[in-house]
């Protein structure tokens, strides 16, 4: 709810911030001190916090931040409507080709790290799962919590929509266990919810549900599952130390993409993002600093 509200506020701010010049202008010819930043919903709160802090220190710079999903952000970069695209996954080969044919040269910047937490309702007695078990749950091989040591309840699988970078990452890393040849898909009865908020709301009230979300977005009243890479291994809960020492198996880099090497105010902003001050905000929001 809070995030949707923030998004709403943002859109209002953006609408009012769009002067007569910027509303129709493309990124390349917008005013020199205006930065348009769009993409991953995972990153949107972080990008927003950065933008707010940066603007209080540099009152001449204006930064607008919007979400929509990694795919949306990269599509906007390809269409030259943003200066910086946020993505919670690497740019795909097809997107790279599409960009090249449109005269755009996406350059990657790693700006933070994020762990994906698997979440369940606190009433659910299951505390630990192996990656293989999570894969079997989401591909539809395991359909009852009893099979993984829980109560006799059907499993309701929740996922983000397919335009979410988190969805693609989860498919590749968890469902297919990192195996590129594997063609396993999400079970068709997986609920595809349009926002992280939808997943949190459903898990909060439904003891049958299992969902996944970025560590920074998991509220305190939901239960995170400790995950083992393989059966017999140690079960690890997601947290900053376990992500940094790579014992927690589902963690990824978060990216910002620019068209060509960043220049001018965009470059200054990206440099600031990698500074100690900005990376402190990363940790405050539940993400893992890039350095």
């Amino acid at each position, binding site marked *: 709810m809070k995030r949707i509200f923030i998004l709403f506020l943002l859109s209002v701010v953006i609408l009012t911030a769009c002067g007569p010049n910027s509303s129709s202008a493309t990124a390349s010819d917008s005013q020199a001190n205006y930065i348009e930043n769009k993409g991953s919903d995972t990153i949107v709160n972080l990008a927003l916090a950065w933008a707010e802090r940066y603007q209080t220190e540099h009152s001449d710079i204006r930064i607008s931040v919007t979400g929509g999903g990694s795919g949306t952000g990269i599509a906007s970069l390809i269409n030259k409507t943003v200066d910086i695209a946020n993505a919670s996954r690497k740019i795909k080969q097809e997107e790279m080709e599409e960009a090249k044919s449109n005269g755009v040269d996406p350059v990657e910047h790693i700006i933070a790290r994020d762990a994906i937490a698997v979440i369940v309702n606190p009433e659910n007695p299951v505390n630990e799962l192996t990656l293989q078990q999570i894969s079997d749950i989401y591909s539809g091989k395991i359909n009852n919590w009893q099979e993984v040591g829980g109560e006799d309840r059907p499993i*309701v699988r929740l996922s983000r929509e397919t335009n979410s970078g988190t969805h693609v990452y989860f498919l590749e890393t968890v469902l297919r266990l990192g195996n590129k040849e594997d063609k396993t898909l999400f079970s*068709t009865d997986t*609920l595809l*919810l*349009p926002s992280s908020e*939808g997943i949190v*709301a*459903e898990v909060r*009230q439904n003891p049958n549900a299992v969902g996944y979300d970025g560590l920074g977005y998991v509220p305190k009243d939901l239960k995170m599952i400790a995950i083992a890479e393989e059966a017999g291994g140690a079960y690890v809960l997601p947290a900053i130390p376990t992500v940094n020492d790579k014992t927690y198996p589902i963690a990824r880099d978060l990216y910002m993409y620019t068209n060509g090497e960043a220049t001018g105010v965009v470059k200054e902003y990206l440099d600031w993002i990698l500074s100690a001050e900005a990376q402190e905000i990363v940790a405050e929001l539940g993400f893992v600093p890039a350095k």
Partner: protein
Amino acid sequence: MEKSLNWREFIITRAIKASGYSAIVFVALIFFFLIREGVPTFGEVKLDSLFNIRWYPIEDYFGILPLITGSLIVTLGAALIAVPFGIGTAIYISEIAPRWVREILKPLVELLGGLPSVVLGFLGILVLSPFLRVFLDLPTGLTAFTGSLLLGAIAVPTVVSVAEDALDTVPRAYREGAWALGATHWQTIWRVTLPAARSGVLTAIMLGVGRAIGETMTVMMVTGNAPVLAIKLSSLFSPVRTMTATIAAEMGEVANGSTHYHVLFFIGMVLFLISLGVNIAASSVVFRSKKRAERILS
């Protein structure tokens, strides 16, 4: 003086004519655009994989059957709720309720019609779906039925206000004639007033169904969006994915001109054809009944 009046008349008639034709032009333009963007689908996706049961566009599975059945089952459920409720309310307001009740009820129904659908979606997620999960003992409350209930609530005000207007225009002499023949109040409503207002009531139903099938935000929030083929009765109580929610959720991410983009427009075409079909079916029924009524009266 007279000349300027003529001028004004000329401009006004032309302006009215233009706005009349513009509706036709816009529909034609929209349909042309849908066809232009949707037809390339046939060159890119084989027919048997298009009419298939797996929808997972990021891995090139473009089976649209789950989406069509999803939309149909949600709309059917909504119609089953909205039609009896809506027409019942309209009959009550126009035929039975005392004047003061009518003056309160009518604006209230119109207020309900003004509720933004996203607000109903919130209510659905936070109140209705948890309640339904516990009450009906379902695995999850995000189901086609939840969507049907909310869409029913969205369609009811449309049905009520149009049907009520239609009942209102039935001449008083019809009712008085029925009473004079000794018909009870109920017999008059069921056998005389309602059949006399038939074309307006059918229009009301059609508009209500149209409202339900095109609704996007609410269904996206409460139906769970799982692309499962919905052809069993139990599908009503499981998650489904509708055509509108698919377009809304995925249009933002697709690359312009990709196969996925064309398929989304193709879904738009299917949606357009379905509502066109509903319209044609309803207006042909209305047309036929009018002919018959005219024959009897003349």
